[in-house]
């Protein structure tokens, strides 16, 4: 029985396997490390970091929906400075590629955050969260405005040589157009998808269940949408894709790779079974062995249509 090659490349970023922990679903790695051996994973993405610490939204921040959940955490995070000071030392003890997710409300702020973090060797890549209100352009989301996405990509690209991943919003008509802009602006890869906008109301109080009114929908409910977005990008634009959305087991990982993902991120599942990510890595290896795939990367975009 020959050993299976689980390594995957996302642009210049080489990972030992395609299983990445998604931003905002594992904090800064501390708690999850009690359940999952980080050194067995492809990479870990931090909670979105902003220039200044953010307190986040008041409760209620989450609500369950059919096969999914809504969240409106409000980007609560310690801010880039404290992250470097207090969080990186812990992560440095673990042999796992670190991807820093950055959130900001102006192009300049994205750049500033990147500059502060860029010096840290342990950081292997940046994932830019464009699902944030663009304060300069009227508070509409960066992620839904193709020009803004181009600008942010270009500006951050200019200040870092690390792998640059743009995390795309699914709340658009044709996500591949955004992926093309990212590619043209020098981005190394895209992550797809972030959460879908949703809400939920209490029919007795007639008030929103989450304080922010709208929240981000995640979990298995959105998997079909996420797969369609990844497939659209994969068929239209030649750029590495990190597939995200509703992954609950190794089969879902394979499905995302088949439609075009080079790697995947696991989010909501961490809340339900924090040990699953490592289990999935092992199950992927078995699957490849049983089906004589020598390299798991051969699965990427192997769809037959």
């Amino acid at each position: 029985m020959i050993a299976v090659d689980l390594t995957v490349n996302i642009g210049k970023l080489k990972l030992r396997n395609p299983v990445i922990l998604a931003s905002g679903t594992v904090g800064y790695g501390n708690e999850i490390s009690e359940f999952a051996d980080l050194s067995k994973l492809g990479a870990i993405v931090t909670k979105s970091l902003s220039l200044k610490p953010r307190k986040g939204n008041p409760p209620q921040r989450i609500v369950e929906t059919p096969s999914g959940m809504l969240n409106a955490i409000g980007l609560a995070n310690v801010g880039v400075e404290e992250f470097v000071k207090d969080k990186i030392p812990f992560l440095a003890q673990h042999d796992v590629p670190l991807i820093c997710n950055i959130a900001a409300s102006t192009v300049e702020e994205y750049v500033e955050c990147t500059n502060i973090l860029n010096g840290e060797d342990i950081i292997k890549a940046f994932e830019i969260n464009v699902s944030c209100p663009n304060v300069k352009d009227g508070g509409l989301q960066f992620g839904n405005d193709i020009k803004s996405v181009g600008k942010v990509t270009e500006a951050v690209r200019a200040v870092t040589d690390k792998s640059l991943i743009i995390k795309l919003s699914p709340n658009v008509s044709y996500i591949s157009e955004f992926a093309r802009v990212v590619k043209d602006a020098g981005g190394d890869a895209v992550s797809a998808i972030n959460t879908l906008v949703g809400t939920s109301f209490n029919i007795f109080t007639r008030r929103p269940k989450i304080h922010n009114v709208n929240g981000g929908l995640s979990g298995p409910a959105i998997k079909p949408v996420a797969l369609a977005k990844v497939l659209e990008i994969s068929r239209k634009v030649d750029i590495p894709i990190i597939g995200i959305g509703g992954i609950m087991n190794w089969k879902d990982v394979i499905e995302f790779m088949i439609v075009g993902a080079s790697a995947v991120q696991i989010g909501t599942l961490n809340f339900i079974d924090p040990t699953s990510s490592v289990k999935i890595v092992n199950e992927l290896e078995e699957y490849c062995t049983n089906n004589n795939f020598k390299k798991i990367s051969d699965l990427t975009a192997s769809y037959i249509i």
Partner: protein
Amino acid sequence: MQIVKSPLIETTEVQENIFIQKVHSPEIAAEAKPGKFLNIRVSETIYPLLRRPFSVCDVDGEYIFLMYNVTGEGTGLLAHKMPGSFIDILGPLGNGFNIEGDYDTAVILAGGLGAAPFPFLTRKLDGKKNILSLIGGRNKKDVITYNLKNVLTASDDGSEGMKGNVVDLFKANLKELTIKRIKVFACGPTPMLRALKNVCIDNNINCEVSTECAMACGFGICQGCPIESCQNQDTYLLVCKDGPVFNVKDVLL
């Protein structure tokens, strides 16, 4: 903190729609403390998706006990589990009550299902401290005194014990209580805890409250369960990780 699948021994309906479930879980029993909680997966499918948090109601040797009422689909599925079937438990989670300290009377104060964590606390305090349990609810059906000691009751409609809420009951006994060195352990609806906080502040009574919040993970990775801190306005505390038990002085209710 671990994930275990433990066999259900039996389910007993101790009073209308109040279920006690006995589970054989040496691993959880060993780590459990009064006030800690468990995040339980009620289904083997992906629906309902999230785990459900439940207090450790009691621990007896290798057995743990849950107390809950059926309020929705998750608790409904849990109540229908057959003896012998396995329960997927993540825990024990949270900090738990601090039962040490120089007080001689523990005043347990619970509203409705806020009674859940107190059989275990009672077991731990028994013999070490005097216990007075003040238990309230909307009506007789809502007053849960299961495995509690030295109980006084109150109900909003007067159908059980004193007419009024449990904080009124506490106030009614305040004079004789404040002669003693007491510590209050409370759990129940937030409005009740808020009212209690005022009483404790005014009379500067040492009081720990177990709080509630919608949760996803239960151990600090989702940031879903914030509670306002009195010490530091710049950041929230997390009910699941910094709590669920807080000194009443430390949190904004």
